[in-house]
C-alpha cells in the first residue's frame, strides 16, 4: 500500500484501534496517526506507545447455558439442539446492540440460525465437500468456501450468546475459541465437534482449495494440535491435479 505515514500499534490482531466501546482511547490512536501529518517530513513508521487496557483472562468466561452434554445423535441433531439453547442469549446481546449483528454473511437472514446449524451439521454428517446443502437458501458462496462462512456465522452467534452473560464483558477471540473447541481436558461444544469433523472431510477431499478452507476455518492450534493450513506434503501432492488456486481466487470465477 506504500502509506507515507504509518502508526504501528501494539494491539491484538483484529483490534486496530485498541479498545472496544472506548471512544477516547480510539480517538487518541487516530490523533497519533493524524499528528504525523504535521510532525514528520519524510516517510515514517512511528510506534504507538500506549498499550490497550488489559482484557480479562480467557478462563474468566463460561458458557451462559448449563449444557447437559449432547453427545448422542448426528452432528445435525446436536447442533440444532445447541443453538436452540443459546438463541435466547444471542437475542439478548443483539437487543443491547440495537439489533446489530455480523451474522448472515453466508446468505441466510439475520435470524436464521437454525438453517446454518442444519447446513453445517449436514456437511459434518455427510462429508460431501462439493455440494452446498440444499436448504432453500441462496448461498452467497460456493463450496468449499461456503463452509468457512457458515463456520463464521456460527462463531458470531456463539459469541453473541456468551457475551450476554453478566460478568467480565464480551469474550475475546481466544475465549470464544477455547469455549467452542474445548481445552485442558474440558469438552468443547457440538459446534467444535462438527467443525473438526468437517476439517477431516476437507482433508480427505485433498484439493488444495479444500485444505485452505480448512486453514481458514479452524483457528491456529486446534487442528490435530496445530495449524490447519496445508502441510508442505499436502501442498506438493496437489500440484498438477486440481483446479489452480489462481482460477479459484479470481474475482470473476464462476459459481461452483
Amino acid at each position, binding site marked *: 500500500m506504500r502509506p507515507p505515514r504509518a502508526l504501528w500499534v501494539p494491539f491484538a490482531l483484529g483490534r486496530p484501534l485498541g479498545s472496544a466501546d472506548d471512544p477516547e482511547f480510539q480517538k487518541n490512536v487516530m490523533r497519533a496517526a493524524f499528528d504525523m501529518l504535521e510532525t514528520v517530513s519524510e516517510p515514517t513508521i512511528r510506534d504507538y506507545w500506549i498499550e490497550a487496557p488489559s482484557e480479562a483472562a480467557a478462563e474468566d468466561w463460561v458458557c451462559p447455558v448449563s449444557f447437559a452434554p449432547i453427545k448422542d445423535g448426528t452432528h445435525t441433531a446436536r447442533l440444532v439442539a445447541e443453538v436452540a439453547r443459546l438463541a435466547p442469549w444471542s437475542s439478548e446481546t443483539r437487543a443491547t446492540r440495537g439489533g446489530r449483528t455480523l451474522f448472515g454473511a453466508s446468505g441466510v437472514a439475520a435470524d436464521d440460525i437454525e438453517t446454518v446449524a442444519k447446513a453445517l451439521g449436514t456437511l459434518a454428517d455427510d462429508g460431501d465437500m462439493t455440494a452446498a446443502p440444499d436448504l432453500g437458501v441462496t448461498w452467497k458462496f460456493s463450496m468449499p468456501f461456503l463452509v468457512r462462512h457458515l463456520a463464521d456465522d456460527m462463531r458470531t452467534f456463539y*459469541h453473541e450468546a456468551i457475551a450476554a452473560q453478566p460478568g467480565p464483558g464480551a469474550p475475546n477471540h481466544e475465549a470464544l475459541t477455547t469455549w467452542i473447541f474445548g481445552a485442558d481436558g474440558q469438552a468443547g461444544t457440538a459446534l467444535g465437534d462438527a467443525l473438526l469433523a468437517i476439517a477431516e472431510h476437507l482433508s480427505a477431499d485433498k484439493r488444495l482449495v479444500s485444505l485452505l478452507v480448512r486453514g481458514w476455518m479452524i483457528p491456529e492450534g486446534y487442528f490435530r494440535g496445530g495449524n490447519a493450513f496445508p502441510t508442505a506434503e499436502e501442498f506438493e501432492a496437489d500440484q498438477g491435479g486440481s483446479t489452480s488456486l489462481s482460477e479459484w481466487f479470481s474475482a470473476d470465477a464462476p459459481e461452483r
Partner: protein
Amino acid sequence: MLHVTSGMRAQTPAPWITPKPLRESKVALISTAGLHRRTDEPFRPGAIDYRLLPGDVDFADLVASHVSSNFDRSAFQQDPNIWFPLDRLREMVAAGEVGAVGNWHYTFMGAQLDHNALREAGEEVGRLLAADEVDLALLIPV
C-alpha cells in the same frame, strides 16, 4: 509460508504530499476488513475489488466476509468503530479537530498474496476519493 512470501518485494514509499491542516481536511476511511453491506456481493478469497460504504451507513447493515479466522472479530461485534471508526470521525468533526467526513468510504479484502494485483482497484479508489474532494485517507488494516 515460504510459498506465499517468496514473491513479495520491498516497497518504495508513495510520493510525499504536505496536506492541508487536519481541521480543514475532509477524511475518508479505508478498511481491509472485508466489510460490506449485507445486501452487497461478499468478498471472495483473494478478491481484488472493493466495496463502498456511504458516509451515513448504518452499522447494523454491515457484515464481513474476510477469509481469515485467525483475527479477533469479537471487538468489532461489540463496537464497529474499532475497525471502522466512523462515529469517532464524526465526533472529531463536531469538536473541530477534523474538517469533514467523506461522503464515501471504501473496503477491501485483506490477507492478499499479491499486492500488485490491487493496483487497478487502488488507483480507481484514489480517483473516486479525489472526486469526493477527500484530502486524507485513513487506512485501517485489521
